[in-house]
């Protein structure tokens, strides 16, 4: 070996070493944040914005100097509205990319699909959407509404303020609408509504031929009693549904539709004139006037460079969830999942509509409940609002199976504790 080749080899080895060091230094300098939202397929209409929201939050945090002296780095994957793919992508985020936290999922079936992955790998998921409850996992924080923070108050409003006597429960055929409707049915019957006055209807994802269902609703509503539709229809099937309502001239004054999955973002893509007066129940409306709200809307418009982009409820949930996660990480000075989950409980973050949300021991939040009527410009006029904040209840008090179940990760250390048998059943309830 001549001297020349030796030096050359040394140089190559040195560069290679330097590169590896640089790469590992790079990796150590960032905290990875996973974003698990569908960017294509039937749920993209709702989930794409959430991806942008998380990116904006990360951007904001990095401008403030990052977290624990490191920059945050987003790892975005596209599970394409395909539920098994959610689990695969979650596994990839946790095992391959080793993210500190994941913000993601919209439909409950996607959450159910990733749940075992998060529990197996001890990951951390922030789930920002209203859902059916009946779940509390150590590895998930539910920043959206539980049924008692959205569905039940909405039904109460219709019953007491509007005088609704007949109910159509219409939903997409999967776990969230089925469970929510089960809870609502039990609740309505407990309030003295006859079974004949409740009509339940399920449709597949992406359903587009609504003519006979809307005609049925019309017939059901013409029996002389005030009728309302409680809609848990998800994703883009809402567009042809509302179009058909408009075409068959069902106005909100005769049969109001109260939706749990239709917000500003979904309304932005459609002609809202036939929808004026239909209702939505959420924990946030973009039209609410408060300093925190206008500040975030301004940031959002600046980030997206589009002054017309809408802000909605699950986005607010991500904002609250992200702030809490940052606080928890700063508190324990580590991104270790066990330490962070313990520190999360009891943390507070301001709501954008006023008031301060608190993380409860059952991994749910306290939230205000708002009911709004659709305006012609696609925004909502708040017509009713709870006076205080409602604490999220993981296990519904209206279902026979879940009445005695409690979730408490502080004293009981269990998400599914039966107060009668005094047993913790783990996460595989049912």
């Amino acid at each position, binding site marked *: 070996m001549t001297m020349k080749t030796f030096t050359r080899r040394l140089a190559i080895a040195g560069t290679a070493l330097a590169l590896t060091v640089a790469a590992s230094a790079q990796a150590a300098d960032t905290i990875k944040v996973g974003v698990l939202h569908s*960017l*294509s*397929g*039937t749920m*993209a*209409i709702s989930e*794409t914005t959430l991806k942008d929201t998380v990116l904006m939050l990360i951007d904001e945090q990095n401008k403030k100097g990052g977290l624990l002296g490191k920059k945050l780095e987003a790892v975005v994957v596209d599970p394409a509205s395909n539920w098994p793919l959610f689990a695969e992508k979650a596994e990839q985020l946790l095992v391959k990319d080793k993210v500190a936290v994941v913000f993601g999922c919209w439909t409950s079936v996607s959450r159910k699909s990733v749940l075992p992955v998060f529990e197996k790998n001890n990951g951390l998921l922030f789930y920002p959407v209203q859902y059916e409850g009946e779940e509390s996992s150590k590895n998930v924080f539910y920043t959206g509404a539980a049924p008692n923070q959205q569905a039940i108050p909405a039904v109460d409003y219709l019953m007491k303020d*509007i005088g609704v006597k007949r109910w159509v429960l219409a939903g997409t*055929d999967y776990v969230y609408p089925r469970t929510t409707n089960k809870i609502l049915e039990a609740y309505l019957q407990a309030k003295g509504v006859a079974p004949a006055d409740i009509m339940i*209807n*399920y*449709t*597949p994802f*992406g*359903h*587009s*031929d609504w*003519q*006979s*269902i809307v*005609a*049925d609703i019309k017939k059901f509503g*013409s*029996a*002389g009693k005030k009728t309302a539709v409680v809609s848990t229809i998800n994703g*883009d099937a809402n*567009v*042809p549904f509302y*179009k*058909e309502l*408009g*075409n*068959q*001239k069902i106005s*909100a*004054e*005769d049969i*109001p539709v109260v939706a749990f999955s239709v917000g500003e973002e979904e309304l932005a*893509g*459609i*002609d809202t004139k036939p929808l004026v*007066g239909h209702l939505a129940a959420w924990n946030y409306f973009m039209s609410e006037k408060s300093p925190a709200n206008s500040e975030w809307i301004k940031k959002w418009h600046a980030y997206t460079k589009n002054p017309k982009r809408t802000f909605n409820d699950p986005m607010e949930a991500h904002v609250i969830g992200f702030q809490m996660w940052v606080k928890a990480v700063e508190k324990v000075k580590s991104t270790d999942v066990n330490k962070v989950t313990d520190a999360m409980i009891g943390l507070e973050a301001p709501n954008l509509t006023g008031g301060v949300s608190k993380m409860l021991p059952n991994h749910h939040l306290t939230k205000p409940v708002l009911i709004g*009527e659709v305006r*012609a410009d696609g925004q909502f*006029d708040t*017509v009713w609002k709870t006076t205080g904040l409602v604490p999220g209840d993981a296990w519904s008090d209206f279902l026979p199976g879940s009445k005695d179940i409690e979730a408490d990760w502080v004293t009981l250390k269990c998400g599914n504790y039966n107060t009668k048998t005094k047993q913790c059943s783990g996460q595989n309830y049912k």
Partner: protein
Amino acid sequence: MVLLLALLFAMTARAQTPAPVAGDPFATAVAGLGADNFPDKAAAVTVLTELRHPNGRAVLAAMLDGKLYLRNADGRVFITDAGETALALTDPLTMQAAGTGIPDDFARITTNNSLRKTLRSAVAGFALADPDAAVRLGAVREMLRSSLDEDSAALLRGALEKESDEDVRQAVREGLALADLESPEPEKRLAAVRALEKSLNSDVYNRLTSMVTAAEDGSYPEADERVRIAAREVIGSIDSSRRVYGTLETLFFGLSLGSVLVLAAIGLAITFGVMGVINMAHGELIMLGAYTTYGVQLLMPQHIGLSVLVAIPLAFLVSGTVGVLIERGIVRFLYGRPLETLLATFGVSLILQQIVRDGVSPNNVPVETPQWMSGSWQINDALSITYNRIYVLLFMVLVFAILQIVLKKTSLGLKVRAVAQNRNMAKAMGVRTQWVDAMTFGLGSGIAGVAGVAFSQLTNVGPNLGQQYIIDSFMVVVFGGVGNLWGTLIGGMSLGVANKILEPWAGAVLAKIFVLVALILFIQRRPRGLFPQKGRAAES
């Protein structure tokens, strides 16, 4: 500076409009519309309705349209036309222009559903004297939506005397008869029941049913026996006509769903049925047609009504060209190898989806429905049909007829049929079979594009649009009998009707499953479908 300007505006506005005369009930009621809660607003609306002030209608209509604003400074109510920077104010008391204001100084007076219902009924009361019969009919219908109080009944009686239009008279009579059912005199009630005989209005039906439904102690809300018998007769006749209309409605829904299926499948009936090519990219050709509609609407945003018509030939060209490219580029190398064709065209379908996803947007795009296609045709109280479905049904019939003419009457059609029946013989007779293959594939693809234009009016336009229809399309073609356009038509229509008959009692999810299971059983019994091809062509 802005503040100063605002003050100046406010001052000039005040100078132009005289302060409300104290004790003027109209002024008090108008001021009451600006109350901060809905019950007080509703009370003010009722007062305004009773006052019948000449400006009342304009004020209430403005409130209904959300054009009534409250000035924050002094709590006065104005009618405005909302502008970006300045509001043109009108004083509701005098109907005179009252200068302009800046939006930040004003708050819109909000309404809710029940208030809007009251407002509509109130505005309708003013519209009873409108010279246009259609407006009067609408006004009467609007008033009858909420139960009549004595004032409105008196108003309607007055209107009936002056009314000349028969439809309006009928509607008014119906409403008055309903009000008469509350009368203490049995004779009057009996007459009212008789008058309601022809009505299909659901309010009438509910009211009559409640009259003859026995309470728990065996007594009836309607005391008189004769009135009850008459009411039962009327209910019976309403029931039977409702059943007839209900059946008609289901039939139409079925035909409409069937027309969608046929439109989706008819292009495939040519490529798959006539040529025997399994084209998995068929759905994406439909999608391209739908996106063409979107593109046309982007190019001519002022003429949405026309855009759909312009999109039809364009979509045919776009999808047809892509079809020819697929045939020339891929399919022609794979004739006689169905499995490879299937895989290759499946690949093409993924490529087309991804092109749209990256090129346009992964999200759905909004395609507007033209005015002439929205709304519904109200035949009577029990039956109405939406326009967009009628047009799609007619469009399907038109496309089918044109296709039949092309295949049966043109030289291209003759060659297509010749090649389908016996390729070698056709070749021997001098037919350029390669050219015919390309044209046939292009024709089938173009028809798929045209179907896409129709679907853009019914469903969401997104990269996955085609996936929804591909299975259904194959189902219809196989069910109808491969190679037979009439089979496709009848197959699609019967699947649609069967689906809609099952849907009311099985639900949308189960109905689809039932139809699919029935179809599998049918194909087991008759593998060649409803109308199998006969003769030598069937054997090859």
